[in-house]
């Protein structure tokens, strides 16, 4: 594995880690698809800024993107509050409008530039290591990696500063507003952070895989964690594993790294949903099944006591309204327990 591949892997891991804090916030707040909305809307900010400064390399492009992403959140919240739109309709109304305006502006005024709408959806991770951060003649590494590390640090610091208020606001916004935890400030502050993260990440992985990196590890962590702090740690772990496995598979099979990472977040999600010890499907079936059998066998033993020790499967079935299959399971369970 050569140095370039290492850097690419590090960039992938870093990109995944940046998305952890905003992702956990969005998932717990119940607005996961706002990440999808933001990452599509920010193209309008980029195009708008580009038409103003006429340069593809100006940092103002990213500022414009951040503003557009935040603007879509503000408009969505406004329409939910003033126009009484349901949450899903509010989210789905504005971002296609922003994206369409962006595409129209590109087609009308920026046709010959490198602003390629495919990049918005597909990302450009493979070429990330080639853009270097060179300051004072020293090559500090790929720009994407430096930016990613700074953004990760920023998300962690923001979380530490807002931690108590954030948890109060997420759990009970009404209580938060009554106790002056200022839910609106916390909410919009976190949305601004999410917008900045989306801006820094979407050019690498594309608008849709941003959703995968933010939402899927957080959703998986929701099944396994018992506190918000644990949820962040678990989400970070799933992100790292998905990035590494995704990169490895894509490198072996020679296909889209970004798509592969998204698929691996999904695979981990599926594993957690099925196999998590307390909340996974198998775990629940096991504990619930045991309890159901225990309670059912208690009834059967009581029935046998009341009927002078006679155990007739048909009578038991009719008395308790069980299916044939369940009756035999319970009798087998009692038989195993009394052996």
């Amino acid at each position, binding site marked *: 594995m050569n140095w370039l591949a290492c850097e690419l892997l590090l960039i992938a891991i870093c990109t995944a880690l940046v998305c952890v804090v905003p992702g956990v916030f969005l998932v717990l707040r119940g607005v*996961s698809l706002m*990440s999808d909305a933001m990452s599509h809307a920010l193209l309008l900010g980029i195009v708008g800024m580009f038409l103003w400064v006429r340069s593809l390399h100006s940092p103002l492009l990213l500022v414009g993107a951040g503003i557009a992403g935040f603007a879509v959140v503000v408009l969505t919240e406004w329409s939910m509050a003033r126009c009484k739109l349901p949450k*899903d309709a509010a989210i*789905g*109304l504005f971002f296609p409008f922003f994206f369409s305006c962006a595409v129209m502006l590109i*087609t009308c005024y920026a046709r010959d530039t490198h602003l390629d709408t495919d990049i918005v959806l597909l990302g450009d991770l493979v070429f990330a290591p080639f853009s270097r951060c060179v300051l004072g003649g020293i090559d500090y590494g790929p720009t994407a990696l430096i930016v990613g590390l700074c953004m990760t640090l920023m998300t962690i610091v923001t979380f530490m500063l807002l931690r108590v208020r954030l948890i109060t606001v997420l759990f009970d916004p009404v209580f938060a507003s009554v106790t002056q935890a200022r839910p609106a400030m916390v909410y919009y502050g976190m949305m601004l952070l999410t917008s900045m993260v989306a801006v820094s990440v979407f050019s690498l992985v594309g608008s849709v895989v941003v959703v995968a990196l933010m939402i899927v590890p957080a959703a998986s962590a929701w*099944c396994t964690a018992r506190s918000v702090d644990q949820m962040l740690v678990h989400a970070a772990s799933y992100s790292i594993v998905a990035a590494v496995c995704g990169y490895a598979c894509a490198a072996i099979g020679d296909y889209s790294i970004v798509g592969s990472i998204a*698929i691996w977040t999904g695979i981990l*999600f599926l594993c957690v949903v099925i196999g998590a010890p307390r909340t996974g499907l198998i775990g629940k079936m096991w504990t619930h099944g045991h309890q159901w059998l225990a309670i059912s066998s208690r009834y059967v033993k009581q029935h046998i006591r009341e009927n002078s020790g006679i155990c007739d499967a048909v009578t038991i079935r009719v008395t308790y309204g069980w299916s044939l299959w369940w009756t035999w399971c319970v009798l087998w369970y009692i038989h195993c327990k009394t052996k």
Partner: protein
Amino acid sequence: MCDYTLYAALIPALGILIIGLMAGFVGTFAFLKKQTMLGDTIAHAALPGICGAFLFTNNGSSMVLIFGGFIAGLCAVALVTILQHYTHIGSDAILGTILSVFFGLGLVLLTHIQKLPIAAQAVLNKFLFGSAATLLYEDLLLLTIVGCIVCVTLFCIWHPLVIVLFDQRYAHTIGMPVWVILTLFYILLVLVIVAGLYAVGVVLMSSLLVAPAVAARALTRSVQHMAFCAAAWGACAGMLGMLWSLSAAHLPTGPAIVIVATGGTLLVLAAGLARRSVA
């Protein structure tokens, strides 16, 4: 010459009309069920189906691609329903998961397509932005058949569907086959979205479901009126958007339709707000 231009514009126009009507009808019910973002999820989840159908059959005809997208969309809806039922994860997180993971799978398949000596970029562009302006006669025929199926089925299950959407628990208690009705509805939703991908592409399809329904909700007081109003607005916005994109060279149709639809809806909302603040 004039006849040819008229004919070339007529087919896409009819196609958009049908898609706008279907999207308006089905979008009303998706809006009432508060699952319009499910439309966005299905639209993104159709990508691996389309790519898979393309790879499997080496045939880029619309029938094959729509079928592939349809199967992928159905899988996505089934997974969303199962996850909502068996886990405590919020439905928005489930939608985000299915949307992005399926799309990632689509990206992987797309890179496979790009290695083949076929015009893969055409498939991708068709999917991303739709190809309304280049609809063929066969596509129009397919859209008409899909439109008829959707409308007839919807009119058959109209009243039961309204009961289920308004109060699902009550519908269970009066012995309605709730899951049959919901399954039919989801099938219609997937059909409409996959067919609509052809006109406006993936990012913008959810807009065609949402915007007409939102405008209709602000203007009407019953489900029947809302559905017909949304269908009319969807069809009008489609035609106006198409006219706009034809009026200048190179204007993409999908974004034009979405801008018209959403712009009109925002005007309706603003008018409603102004009326409420005056009253």
